[in-house]
């Protein structure tokens, strides 16, 4: 019982963090790393800060963005 509650809380927190990061244009880092390992094992895996910086620049590159 307690364990499920903790797990649910954990998953809500993960959801909140993931959503908040995505709202700032930063997708899930773990998913990206897994993707790189699986599909492009030859490429270097960036650290979270490198990943964050790249995404931060990419967000403001062109079209899209937000509403009025």
């Amino acid at each position, binding site marked *: 019982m307690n364990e499920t509650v903790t797990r649910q809380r954990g998953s809500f927190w993960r959801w909140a963090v993931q959503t908040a990061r995505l709202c700032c244009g930063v997708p899930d880092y773990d998913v990206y790393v897994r993707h790189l390992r699986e599909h492009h094992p030859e490429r270097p895996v960036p650290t979270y800060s490198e990943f964050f910086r790249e995404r931060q620049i990419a967000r403001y590159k062109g079209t*899209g963005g937000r509403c*009025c």
Partner: protein
Amino acid sequence: MQTAIPKPSPAGKILWAAIAIVGAWCLGVVALRRGEPINAIWVVTASVAVFLIGYRFYSRFINTHVLKMDPSRATPAVLRNDGLDYVPTDKWVVFGHHFAAIAGAGPLVGPVLAAQMGYLPGTLWILIGVVFAGAVQDFMILGLSLRRDGRSLGNMLREELGEVPGVIAMVGVLVLMMIVLAVLALVVVKALTHSPWGTFTVACTIPIAVLMGVYLRYIRPGRILEVSIIGLVLLLGSIWYGATVSTSPTMAPLFDFGPKALAWLLIGYGFFASVLPVWLLLAPRDYLSTFLKIGTIALLALAIFLAAPTLQMPAVTKFIDGSGPVFSGNLFPFLFITIACGAVSGWHSIIASGTTPKLLASEGEARMVGYGGMLMEAFVAIMALIAAASLHPGVYFAMNSPGALIGTTVEHAAATISQWGFLVTPAELSDTARNIGEGTILSRAGGAPTLAVGMAQLLHGVLPGEGMMAFWYHYAILFEALFILTTVDAGTRVGRFMIQEIAGLIHAPLKQTDSWASNVIATVICVGLWGYFLYQGAVDPLGGINTLWPLFGIANQMLAAIALMLATVVTVKLKRERYVLVPAVPALWLVACTLTAGWQKLFDDRISFTAAAQKYADAIAANTLLAPAKSVPEMQQIVTNNRVDMALTGIFMLLVLTMVFFGLRAIVQAWRANHPTAHEEPYVALSSVTP
């Protein structure tokens, strides 16, 4: 590949019948009770029932019959998964992201302005508009983009309607964006004029954002949550300290500006914020405003539920005849132009064909994100309307009417507004100003200050305390200014890229986005374009919002009409002609609204730009001064501004008509063809891609 719809259970039928009855009852109370004020909870309950029924029945109908969304089909996120832009993501995460991207200042400002006609017209338009137009647009554009590799609105228009209409629509988007930036910046100018407290707190956001930027880049890279909490604490501190600033004889004058000076400051800010490296100012302020936006919307909802205010504004006021002080023009078409975001907003079609389609893991989730996300925004609009309608109507009109109509003293304003039939005393107006810690509340049009007073009163009702009302007022002003300024700097940057792309067609080197010279040139052009309209608003005889908001509404609804036309064309191209009315009816309605509004803004002798220009031109010819202009060159400027607005209105109308022509042409061609002609990507089974 169609999944069968499960037959509803008896319990389900009873539940939906109950929701329908409760909704109809509440709507009946909202619409029919006259003479005595009603409680906001009726409006909230009626809206929730309408949203639930619209979502359960109409969006499912669109999902299965019009778009034929197919959960077995692989989405762009699955097919092109790169872990960065295309990532299959949990649907609730996509929903949160989508909502944060579509909700902005728009749904908060439009309904407040529309409250001058009473709460009923605005409420009905938001409810009907969102179910049959706004959410349909968002959902259908998202669905179309999902079937086209997540392509943008412009690309889809080019593919489905042709090269020329695609380019025309993109120019339309650029012009729309300039008007959006100008009118939103004007809302900030209106809120901060001669308000040292407000100006101080908004000015503080700049050093706070820079601090956050440095922290995120060098001290603790990528720790967004941490730095946002630090930023929030500093912001609240600046609101608290603002009270001291506003009463200090030495500091207050430093933050006390008139509208012209504020306009120049914002223009300068927009320029620097968009040429500086994004990590320094633009990005951190974006994070802060995103979180604050969601938090404040939740706070507003909580306040409305706890305070359960009574709506003091009548259901319908006499201003439906077009003589209103906040914006002029009849209920049709101007109500439908004034409330854009919240009922239907063309801008959403850009977001629904931007990041969101690249994140959805299944086509089956598009309905919740596209249609459901827009219903959420409509709920925000309803809450803004409630906040405005729960104010004393006399206070509402004092805040939103231009000085040219109500004068500049509380005595004169109270007398004029009482004559309109909304009894108010000078003391009530000056008390409200004192309670919120401002010198005056007169003529603070633009929605933000009104909403802030409404929110402050609601929150003060829930959490009373000495001087707290002023704190809440400045909190609300700060949060609106914060995310408007974020739109301004990010929008300037996006506009700069668009200008560089267009300029690149003429002179190739201008396209290089890494060249300093071409960056600066394009930014200056971009800032100059919206800055012109902002400055025009700041010196406008009717206070600016009255003039610029209709232009913004026309442009935004024009884009929505274009998006819905695309949806109509594709529906026919897919040979689903029997469902063509789903996107075609709202498209035609918006075409009718934008063209009628445009026509009246050009040719009506009461409300048109033409009449305003003529009035000042006549005064120049007769050598008389017409307030608020203080000299002949200023009058000349007003004439020019109105002529520019005339030209712009004409361009918008021409744009709508051209797109109608191209849309009809595509529809006729597709109707004649005996096979589907839409440019969908081929079907790939989800099961063949995922293990």
